[in-house]
């Protein structure tokens, strides 16, 4: 402290000089317009540059925080993409009409997985027990028949397509009274065969094949395909029709699971026998 005082007394002239110059500069900047303008613009220039640098440096410090924020935002946006949703909502189409009683209703679903392209195509549909799906329900879409539900989980079900060895569908000719059984015998997945049509049926190539509704799996009149060729089965005098399927079974996307509301009623008949 004493050395500081000593320094001050020895260099008093310098300190006085410096102090007075500061006072003068202050007076100049405060009371002289031209110098004030120069000082102001210089100050702005340097302070602007300084602020730029400071904010740049600050950006680096905030980088981590910014990253976290962006990651959070990304996750938020990802969760808003359509594929992030398991659609819990059911859209059951029900017709309100007093003279008509609802027989079938449809559970809208989406095919979310398909078996590898081979024989016996199967699908996984994002509907299960909690949506009311049961085994042996039919599945259709806008083009026609898709398949039949085989296994059901809580939220998903497995569907075997009509080109599966174990599928039998009651099918008939549209606007004609003949019907038989549709079956797939392997091979081309675009074609199936309809058996047990009486020999005398006037089948024309190109006739539409549709479901009959007799099996309680599909409603009546769901299109299946069109007749490609006919052949007489010598053994029992029936026609064997080759059917070209309407559905491209590898391209299907939508699935409407058909629920027969009168299945129990119909089953009672079987039990009574």
């Amino acid at each position, binding site marked *: 402290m004493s050395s500081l005082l000593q320094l001050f007394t020895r260099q008093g002239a310098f300190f006085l000089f410096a102090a*007075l*110059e500061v006072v003068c500069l202050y007076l100049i900047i405060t009371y002289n317009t031209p110098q004030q303008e120069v000082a102001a613009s210089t100050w702005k220039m340097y302070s602007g540059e300084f602020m730029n640098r400071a904010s740049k440096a600050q950006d680096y410090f905030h980088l981590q925080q910014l990253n976290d924020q962006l990651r959070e935002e990304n996750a938020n946006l990802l969760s808003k993409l359509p594929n992030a949703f398991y659609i819990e909502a059911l859209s059951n189409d029900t017709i309100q009409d007093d003279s008509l009683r609802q027989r079938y209703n449809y559970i809208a679903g989406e095919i979310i997985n398909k078996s590898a392209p081979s024989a016996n195509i199967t699908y996984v549909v994002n509907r299960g027990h909690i949506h009311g799906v049961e085994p042996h329900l039919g599945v259709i879409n806008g083009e026609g028949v898709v398949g039949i539900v085989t296994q059901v989980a809580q939220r998903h079900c497995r569907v075997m397509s009509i080109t599966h060895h174990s599928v039998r569908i009651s099918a008939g000719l549209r606007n004609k009274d003949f019907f038989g059984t549709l079956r797939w015998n392997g091979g081309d997945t675009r074609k199936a065969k309809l058996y047990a049509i009486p020999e005398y049926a006037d089948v024309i190539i190109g006739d539409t094949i549709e479901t009959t509704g007799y099996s309680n799996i599909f409603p009546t009149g769901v299109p299946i395909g069109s007749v490609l060729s006919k052949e007489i089965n010598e053994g029992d005098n029936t026609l064997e029709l080759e059917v070209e399927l309407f559905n491209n079974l590898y391209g299907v996307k939508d699935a409407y699971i058909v629920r027969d509301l009168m299945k129990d009623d119909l089953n009672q008949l079987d039990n009574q026998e």
Partner: protein
Amino acid sequence: MNKAITNSIIRFFLLWVVQVFVLRQVIWGWDGIVYLQVFLYPLFILLLPLNTPRSLTVFLGFVLGLAIDWLYESPGLHAGALVFTAYMRAVVLGILTPREGYSIKDSPTKKSLGQTWFFQYAATLILIHLFVYFSLEAFTFVYFKSILLKVLFSWLASMFFLLASIYAINPEA
């Protein structure tokens, strides 16, 4: 009261009056810029006795500068330049020390230290003063050439008036 002090007090007021009422009118320039001004008032700092404390010299420079600024309507400008000049006086005196040294009771005048010495002394300090003044006036070195021109013209004019007054009065202290 010491004669040197009395003379200094008289010079303070005299130089102030002459500067703000007479020499202020002497200006010359072109294109709307004043390149020539006459500053005689640093003579007060120049002629202060050699034994004046440096702090006092600086302080007196500040006071006279403010007094000049008062009527020049440029607060701080002349004061800033004159404070600098007053501080630099000791440096210039140190550089220009005669071979036999200063006599502590002297004043740095032409009569006591000779014509050549006084010319060097005054020329250097007036140059310093003008350079600081015009730098403060521009407040930036962007127009450095203009500052140098102003310093040159004003230095010639100021030195003329300064030497003329010294030769006319030739004070000892």
